[in-house]
């Protein structure tokens, strides 16, 4: 390193940290310096140096997209991590992630090739090595096991989401993005789901991918200016039950303890209100999508920090 380069690096360090250091000499890669540096800056630097080579930081670098493909390969070699192993990212969302991480760590403690890290205060990421042919079965089993064990040990709620398997380390970022998508889609559309797999999200995932402007345009076309149908709890219950029973009037009436004719009357009332006769498949599909798109936009409005805003 030249003295001018070292001087420049130190100037930057002084500028950003309040240190007052100057280079007095350079010998190979070693600098001689003179001056003062705040203790907390020294501690932060020490921390950074200590962790720069850790697996946690390496994986966090991949998931966040901070590391390039060549960097990933270089660091992987340094850390002894095999690039060509199939892995998936499993995200665990739970109120007290610092406790859950201990539980998850213990569940997978007999396998070296899994890495567990805190992403933020309530989210943990598990980089799960997947072996064998039944990948999706293994991942679902792992996810259910994690939820059950957190429920049992901590008596707290947990939701787990996972992406598809990645064939190489650089592809893990995609698996992570998918896991996040699955977590969000479950939160928006499938509140009852404690395990969400990206590959099994169905129509919810499709709607989440739509541009907001298109969603608004669609709602305006179907519902008019107000962009929402004003439906009461009982109407929603009837609609959901009717969909559950594959548009079968008799079965729905039986489930709702209504006379068949009463249900038909309510369906006709709904038609007057929405312009959709959900006894017809096309109209039923339109209403289903309208309700889900509405749910999605409501979520976006109530979560201003979400990805889409």
């Amino acid at each position, binding site marked *: 390193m030249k003295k001018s380069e070292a001087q420049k690096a130190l100037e930057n360090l002084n500028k950003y940290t309040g240190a007052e250091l100057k280079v007095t000499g350079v010998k190979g890669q070693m600098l001689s310096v003179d001056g003062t540096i705040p203790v907390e800056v020294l501690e932060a630097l020490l921390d950074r140096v200590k962790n720069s080579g850790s697996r946690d930081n390496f994986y966090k670098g991949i998931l966040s997209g901070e590391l390039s493909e060549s960097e990933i390969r270089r660091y992987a070699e340094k850390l002894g991590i095999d690039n060509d192993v199939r892995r998936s990212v499993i995200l665990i969302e739970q109120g007290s992630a610092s406790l859950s991480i201990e539980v998850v760590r213990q569940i997978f403690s007999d396998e070296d090739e899994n890495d567990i890290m805190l992403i933020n205060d309530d989210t943990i990421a598990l980089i799960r090595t997947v072996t064998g042919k039944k990948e999706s079965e293994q991942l679902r089993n792992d996810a259910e*096991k994690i939820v059950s064990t957190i429920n049992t*040990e901590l*008596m707290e709620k947990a939701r787990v989401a996972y992406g598809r398997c990645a064939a190489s380390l650089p592809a893990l970022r995609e698996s992570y993005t998918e896991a996040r998508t699955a977590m969000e889609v479950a939160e928006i559309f499938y*509140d*009852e789901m404690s395990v969400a797999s990206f590959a099994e999200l169905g129509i919810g995932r499709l709607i989440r991918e739509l541009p907001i402007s298109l969603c608004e345009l669609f709602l305006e076309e179907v519902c008019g200016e107000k962009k929402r149908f004003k439906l009461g709890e009982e109407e929603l219950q009837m609609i959901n039950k009717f969909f559950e029973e594959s548009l079968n009037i008799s079965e729905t009436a039986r489930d709702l303890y209504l006379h068949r004719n009463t249900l038909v009357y309510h369906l006709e009332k709904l038609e007057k209100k929405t312009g959709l006769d959900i006894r017809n498949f096309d109209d039923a599909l339109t209403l289903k999508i309208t309700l889900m798109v509405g749910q999605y936009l409501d979520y976006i409005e109530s979560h201003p920090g979400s990805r889409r805003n």
Partner: protein
Amino acid sequence: MASLSLKNVCKVYPNGFEAVKNFNLEIADQEFIIFVGPSGCGKSTTLRMIAGLEDISSGELRIGDRLVNDVEPKDRDIAMVFQNYALYPHMTVYDNMAFGLKLRKVPSDEIDKMVKEAAKILDLVPYLERKPKALSGGQRQRVAMGRAIVRNPKVFLMDEPLSNLDAKLRVQMRIEIAKLHQRLGTTIIYVTHDQTEAMTLGTRIVVMKDGVIQQVDTPQNLYDRPQNLFVAGFMGSPQMNFLDAVVEIQGETAYLKVANKAIPLSPEKSKKLIDGGYDGKTVTFGIRPEDVYDSEMMVEASPTSVFESTIRVYELLGAEVFLYFDLDEFPMTARVDPRTQARPGDVVKFAFDTEKIHVFDKETEQIITN
């Protein structure tokens, strides 16, 4: 130990899906109650609401005298055992049971006492220093239960805890759980889709369908006196035979007309049909496979309910035989003595035990007479 009370409890998800509707149940202290029903019937959701792992949309839940709707799960004094339990592979049996208590920062001498007590109850004392890999399937399951027992909860919640085990182990663990209930004397709420588990373990059974309680009763009553078609069909394997029959009233006697026969019913059953105004109406007639006979003696003793049919399938199960045949195009099963001579293709005479006939309203599917 505690009683539980659920009043008008409902669970509605934000998308409008109503998973549990108006659930009302009083569970006595030390009771072993089973929630049973097909997948998606709301049994696990109800259990999770009791645990506090799902919010209650409306209604009241009390454990003992305390309203717990808004109490955090960990403060409800309950413990759960799930189907997908995970044991920590690097820890000994002792540490596996102690781990949750350590996370809750329970003092180590207390942990030691609790773990050793639980191990004693579960006959795990000789295995405390072993790791999960060195245990049998049944022992592992007992460790999973030990993790719940060490909490010394007022109520145990078990969500299909045996579903992942093979058939033989399931039977063995069923007995262990029954013994555990006797030893602990704690209230247990147990979810299963397996009606054999429900019948053998429960002091009372709650049968659910589509988020609604269908019937709450003792195992025997559920089997003998089902309140609707669903319960009648769900409890019992092979399931109850159902046929359409037309009611004909002659004087004080009601007859069920089926397959060109008119089966006279007992005065008690007849009265229910007469009082209900079922004359000339089609009803659903139910009879359990063990109440359909092929023995000559029974056939001769019940001349009013004898039918002839061709055997389609013969299934020998060792202690019994299932004969499958059709009656008026309705598929039927008879559970008969293994010494039966009937074989596929044979035309056989069957008789019904008319005392054991159940009659359901065809439209409402509710029981008319058991």
